[in-house]
């Protein structure tokens, strides 16, 4: 979530409310669980960490609003997040936001990110299958490896659905 917010700010500066709107737009109904408080807290934490910079913009009929823009350090953080392939704790919502952010910022091609992620997960699955063949005598090891393999398969299949989402309108 934090990185997705940062990426959306990398596209263009926004104040908290706008940013929350963009996030909820990217998530559909799932975005409704995103509270304004969560967005503001994350923004101020990122400001303290030096990833964003907030500027007060005076308004005529309302209190000042704070517009956030990403710092050079924040931009670097976004770039490395987009290319990071670590997966075990990644929820579908996080990966989806990563693809949205990649497309919005133009910092990476969503389909390439999907390909890279699939490659990484297939490598893991290949390793797990090999371990399972070597460990065929140990029931507990097989059980654990089977669970790992099933999760990887599910994730790889889900990436196919992501690919369809990001290639519609492109293919002939």
């Amino acid at each position, binding site marked *: 979530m934090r990185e997705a917010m940062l990426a959306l700010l990398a596209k263009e500066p926004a104040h908290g409310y706008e940013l929350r709107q963009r996030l909820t737009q990217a998530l559909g109904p799932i975005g409704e669980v995103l509270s304004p408080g969560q967005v503001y807290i994350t923004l101020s934490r990122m400001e303290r960490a030096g990833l964003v910079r907030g500027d007060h913009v005076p308004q005529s009929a309302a209190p000042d609003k704070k517009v956030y823009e990403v710092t050079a350090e924040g931009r670097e953080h976004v770039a490395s997040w987009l290319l990071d392939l670590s997966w*075990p704790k990644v929820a579908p919502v996080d990966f989806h936001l990563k693809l949205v952010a990649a497309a919005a910022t133009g910092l990476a091609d969503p389909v390439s990110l999907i*390909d890279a992620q*699939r490659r990484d997960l*297939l*490598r893991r*699955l*290949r390793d797990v299958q090999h*371990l399972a063949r070597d460990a065929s005598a140990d029931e507990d090891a097989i059980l*654990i490896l089977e669970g*790992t393999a099933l999760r990887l398969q599910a994730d790889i299949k889900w990436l196919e659905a992501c690919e369809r989402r990001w290639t519609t309108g492109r293919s002939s």
Partner: protein
Amino acid sequence: MTSFVLQAKGLSRHYDGDGVRVRAVDSIDLTVEHGEAVSVMGPSGCGKSTLLHLLGGLERPTAGELWLGGQRVDQLSQTGWARLRRRSVGFVFQAFHLVDELSAVENVELPALLVGVGRRQARAKALGLLERLGVANRAGYLPDRLSGGERQRVALARALVNQPLLVLADEPTGNLDSAATAEILRLFAEVHEAGQTLLVVTHDPRVAASADRLLTMRDGSIVEDVRLESGLSRLALLAQVAGWEP
């Protein structure tokens, strides 16, 4: 002889219809070396089955060159291809394609008989393969009395009987349940370890992950060609499985 089992240069299959040119396979360059196991993935309609058909001579390219075991084959006649295919290419299909009227062992020995192997020797080879693939006890059964997994094992035996240069498989686990898939995967792995060159088109992540090399196709082209070996030590792999990644 060259160590390339297969080499394609600019291999294409275009269809013209309704004023639209469909590039089912579009200018593919591909080299497969002896003993490699290659999987091909890609969304439906990306051209991966057409590619497999081109590589096995079931369809003709509209452009490009194709070599099989050092021989140029894209210009071969229908009968030339039929002769070459019997000796050099084994096929495994999603729907098995066994001859319903022949028993398991007769299905397996048929390609051997067609290339002139003697009856007794063909029978011995077929039985040996059925034994190796764990279905020797089904040798006398007609295909409709076999389970899906057994049929695919018979089909794999048939593909291997003439010790082909290359085995081409199109969704070999597409009609199998999870247990039968695991069994077929184990057998493919054994066959591969024995030195057989394999090219498998698949949607199934398990099948794709069992190869050494992955090709990804999109819109008739290969968009990615990567090795799948991670090169990690066994301990590092186990740590990864346990979720204790460094």
